[in-house]
């Protein structure tokens, strides 16, 4: 499985209330909270897509659309240039 990686120049900053994705080249800044924050944190810890999905299923067993939600969020990050 291909590893998910932040794009060059993108850093993830983790705080108690959420996280910040910052692109030093463009100045773009994105605030992440909740599940999105959890996903960004796992990407930052070098988890691949399958590992992230497994972790999400453990954390949110009642959620039915986790796989699609994860896919959508990864797509969103790619569109914003946050993922390599």
């Amino acid at each position, binding site marked *: 499985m291909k590893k998910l990686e932040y794009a060059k120049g993108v850093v993830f*900053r983790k*705080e*108690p*209330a*959420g996280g*910040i994705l*910052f692109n030093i080249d463009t*100045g773009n*800044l994105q605030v992440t909270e909740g599940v999105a924050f959890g996903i960004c944190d796992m990407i930052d810890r070098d988890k691949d897509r399958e590992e992230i999905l497994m972790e999400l299923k453990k954390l949110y067993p009642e959620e039915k659309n986790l796989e699609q939600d994860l896919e959508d969020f990864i797509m969103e990050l790619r569109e914003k240039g946050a993922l390599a």
Partner: protein
Amino acid sequence: MIPTPGVLYINPAGGCNLHCKHCWVNEGSFTGETLALEQWKELLTQAKVMGCEYVKLTGGEPLLYDDIVPLYRFAADSFPKVTIETNGTLQPDGFWDALVERKPFHISVSIDSAEADVHDKFRGQTGAWKKTVAFAEKLVDYKINNQVIMCVSDTQRKPIKDMINLIQSIGAYTLKINFITPSGRGKYNSFFDNTSIEETLDFFAWIDKETPAWVLPSVPAALLPVNRLKSLGYCAVRNLMGVLPDGTFSLCGIAFSRKEMAWGKFPETSVQEAWENSPVYKMIRASVPDNLEGICRKCIHRDTCIGSCVVNNMETGGTITSPDILCQRAYDAGLFPKTRLIDR
């Protein structure tokens, strides 16, 4: 490339009916002239042609302007977003009808305390509080998007708690907390002079933990936790034109008290001419955010926060590229959040 003047702050009335302790308007001086309604319409039309989409009627007290109702109607017909900042003590004839017919994007009123006497003393007029609360209640009754702005010069918690209760009883939508800056008369009692950085950060943390999400402190982005960033508004200073009552072009309204921040006067100078040639606007474009100094240079929020308020930075640090004073003090004290630092 010259950006679009997307935001226009106009100050139509030549002064104010109150005498607030923090205001920059009466502290300074201007010619005493005011543009006629048709001149304001022409100015607004020129701004619209240039791409302006947001007009704020502010002051001084904008509702003092004799033709404020037709001016508001014209602005609301011409621009997607029109806002009004008022002290809420005046209700000109036809004003509410105009607001109901053409809903503004937003109206903010100033209430500084839940105690009438405290507010009236701060605003320099007995009875002001009662009028403004009645105004705010009317905004709620008419379902007009509204905000109450409270100005503070210290870190007392009780006045904030009491204001939250008042806002809830009025039914207003949000409470913005402004920290009095050393501009105009504010220099005699500014928040920055009255509080240490340790007290300030403790106060911000208290606001975050103990007040509802609709309480919006005017805190620089870097000093806010992540959960509060989404509701933080940023100054549009690079796309912003201000116009004083006599048509003088200004950076927001600061030229009331700092004449060097004015250049050109409508109608002798057109909106386009002022926007393209004013050394004030040119200086902003050339300097902000890339030349921001001190902690701003190292901050991940530099390009969106752009120093929080360049006018305040000029007053506290001497130049428009000076860093935000609170962020700089936090950094100097080793209290600036490390997660917001970046090497540039």
